[in-house]
């Protein structure tokens, strides 16, 4: 019993030293972590999203242009924020595929309202637009399309662009 009492006294002292020390070290180190993290959004659990996933389709520049002029589609730039700022389809919002979980919660209300969604990237080798449409489709969004060789095609057809429009960025 005496040994246990000694143990308890010592343990209290050790804990009293260890906790502030651990917190201080965490605060000072470069890779320290927040004490109470903000929970990450869970993009997959979106019950509000329409069901019935459908396979995303490639859309031609002509039809994309028509939907653009009729304002019947929401254009999504799947590239990085830097690329988006350098130039994007007029009115498009930015949802970088590689930071999807970070940006998705802000964009979700717009996606839900959109009649159609057209994702794009740039260049024939870039698959971000296609990947993004696949992901959104798996999440249950409907009427999703991707524009192959997106921005190049768009510019080639003399369609309107925007640059450095921070307000449109998600």
């Amino acid at each position, binding site marked *: 019993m005496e*040994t*246990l009492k*000694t*143990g*308890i*006294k*010592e*343990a*209290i*002292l*050790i*804990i009293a*030293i*260890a*906790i502030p*020390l*651990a*917190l201080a*070290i*965490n605060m000072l180190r470069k*890779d*320290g*972590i*927040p*004490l*109470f*993290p*903000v*929970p*990450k959004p869970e993009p997959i659990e979106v019950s509000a999203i329409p069901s019935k996933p459908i396979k995303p389709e490639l859309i031609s520049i002509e039809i994309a242009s028509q939907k653009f002029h009729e304002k019947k589609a929401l254009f999504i730039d799947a590239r990085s924020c830097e690329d988006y700022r350098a130039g994007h389809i007029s009115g498009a919002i930015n949802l970088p595929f590689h930071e999807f979980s970070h940006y998705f919660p802000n964009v979700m209300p717009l996606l839900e309202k959109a009649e159609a969604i057209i994702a794009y990237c740039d260049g024939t080798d870039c698959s971000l637009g296609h990947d993004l449409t696949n992901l959104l489709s798996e999440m249950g969004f409907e009427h999703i399309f991707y524009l192959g060789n997106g921005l190049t095609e768009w510019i080639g057809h003399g369609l309107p662009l925007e640059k450095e429009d921070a307000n449109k960025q998600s």
Partner: protein
Amino acid sequence: MQTNNLNKKNILKAIFILTRIMFGGTFIWASLDKFLHPQVFADIILNYKILPAQLVNLPAIILPLLELLCGVLLLCGIYFRGSALILNTLLIIFIGAIGSVLARGIDIRCGCFTLSQSADSVALSDLTIDGLLLLAGILVLFYRGEKP
């Protein structure tokens, strides 16, 4: 007869010292990876699905240092009872957590001694190891011989 008793006492003391050093050394070793990579450790704790996401960082910050400190104290023979008591309590918590993961059939990394992604999933062997460590810890805690 007295010599025999003395020998027995010395042997017991040697076993105690060896156990104490091995027990402390094990926890020093176990704490290093967690101490160096707190975020990875926090993610592993989250995978156990025992604590809410907002509360996993606190143990990820405190536990490695606590294990390290207790391990060092055990190695040095200072406050070894307190250190053993803390580590035994942690071991009981770990055993409960591992048992609950096994019972729920969750396939996750243990995060017990290494945070490596190639580490094996939680298994019965982890329970055995923690059980053996707990036995060692109890021996250290309740050893009534002279202070080594």
